[in-house]
């Protein structure tokens, strides 16, 4: 998908590779990628393979200065620390929530209070919204029987969620479509990692936002 859109927009895809979960030596893959002399490597994968790709890319001839970009799978506070200096300057796409939003601030305060620190990975706000929407839905459609059994109609719940409009969540004002997709386009951003994140600060500053 990424490759097709990228090509449409005028980019040239020099190589597409795949790695297995559990692999540690990415050198051969990276070397093969290096033969195409790319300007950017995009790897929307997870930890720890992503860390290894980022770190080892700096050691492969021809990729020393290539731009690295990951996706939300690597958007976690452990990533820059575990990757080390190779992560400096790397781009990550990830969920974006306006930090100045009052509701979100309240959420972060509660998090710090109950769990401590800041949420370690990206989708906390989405998860929060989704869970709340689901819970609201259950509350709305649940029917209590005479003998105390609670029935939650599957179709009713689905109808409720698909029909949801103007839900005011942390990730913005959400309205679901007929496929059940409720996310707004504003919820994603691109972040850039710097020395600070490698040394343990989190989350990274937003580089690009919608």
């Amino acid at each position, binding site marked *: 998908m990424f490759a097709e859109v990228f090509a449409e927009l005028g980019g040239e895809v020099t190589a*597409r*590779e*795949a*790695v*297995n979960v*559990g*692999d*540690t*030596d990415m*050198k*051969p*893959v990276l*070397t*093969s990628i*290096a*033969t195409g002399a790319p300007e950017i490597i995009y790897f929307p994968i997870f*930890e*720890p393979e992503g*860390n*290894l790709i980022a*770190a080892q890319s700096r*050691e*492969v*001839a*021809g990729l020393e200065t290539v731009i690295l970009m990951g996706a939300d799978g690597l958007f976690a506070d*452990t990533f820059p*620390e*575990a*990757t*080390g*200096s190779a992560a400096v300057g790397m781009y990550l796409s990830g969920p974006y929530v306006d930090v100045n939003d009052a509701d979100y601030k309240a959420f972060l305060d509660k998090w710090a209070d109950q769990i401590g620190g800041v949420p370690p990975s990206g989708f906390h706000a989405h998860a929060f919204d989704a869970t709340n929407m689901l819970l609201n839905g259950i509350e709305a459609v649940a029917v209590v029987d005479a003998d105390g059994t609670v029935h939650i109609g599957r179709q009713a719940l689905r109808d409720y969620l698909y029909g949801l409009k103007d839900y005011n969540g942390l990730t913005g004002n959400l309205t679901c479509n007929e496929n059940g997709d409720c996310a707004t386009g504003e919820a994603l951003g691109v972040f850039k990692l710097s020395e600070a994140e490698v040394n343990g600060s989190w989350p990274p500053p937003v580089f690009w936002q919608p």
Partner: protein
Amino acid sequence: MQSYRIRRINWTDLFMWVVGAALLALIVGGTYLTLQQGKFTAVQWFDLAVFGLAQGSVYALIALGYTLVYGILRMINFAHSEIFMSGAFIGYFAATGMQRAGFMQENPLLGIIIIFLTAMTTSAVLAILLERIAYRPLRGAPRLVPLITAIGASFFLQYTFRGLFGTQNRAYPEIDVIKGTVPLFGDFQIQKIQIIVIAAAAMMMAFLVLFVQYTKTGKAMRAVSEDKSVAALMGIDVDAIIVRTFILGASLAGAAGVLYCFMFRIVTFYMGFIPGIKAFTAAVLGGIGNPAGAMLGGLFLGIFESLGPTLFLDGLGVPAPYQLKDVIAFTMLVMVLIFRPTGILGERLSRAKA
């Protein structure tokens, strides 16, 4: 006791020869096509080979542990991969601790030595416990019994570490003295860490060979691996020698764990599994029970894995050939076992009856 298998031409042998020939043709053809396309430069091949050598050195160190224990007990210590993991894991705590305290920055060399000692001690202690609790009561039991115990112990250790230390990825700190590259000639260069890994592994292997060949304990190990009861009649404390064998193998695995983490940095509870299987493959490739074979097998596998997928498959137009590297490694293992069941160097110890 030597047993001769009568080689008749039968359909099973024929089948295997056909499969073997087809694979060989694939390898040769693929290599030719890849090289002909000339996509990769000499520097890139060189980098891959050196990287394979470093990786292979680590495999070799782990493989020695399998081979030593196999030589003496005739069992695959399946849990050896977890012994490797435990060394790397506890070494991580030493490393980050010293990094945070600023010790690593001031005395990097001493720090590195402490990391190694921590890892090797951890691995050795775990191996002693394993031998004492799980394996020793089973001497003389049918062969499947210790093997299954070892599989059980492997999972137990792996998930105990998961329970104790969590599931997150932890990473060794970056140690400045081992970063960077050493230029050779032209565009050729080697990373410092690879030199260190290869040199350290070579040193430890040399130590092991000298130890087994020339020390009293080493000779006793060889004696015990040949005949336990006769060894006991010589006044050799067989149990003590077995424990020492475990300690030796485990220390090498612990050191391998640290070297591995100097290269890849990431520590997880399941990190032992794949290198463990690879090292075992290496031990079998070289001829299990034979330390020299384990080293050769490790180096061979490391290079083969690093170069193989690209060399054999890229030219054939297989997408993402690198994904298939384990397929190549295991296929090679099966082929070696079929056509040369005793490994490259041959099983040095008399083949025990299964």
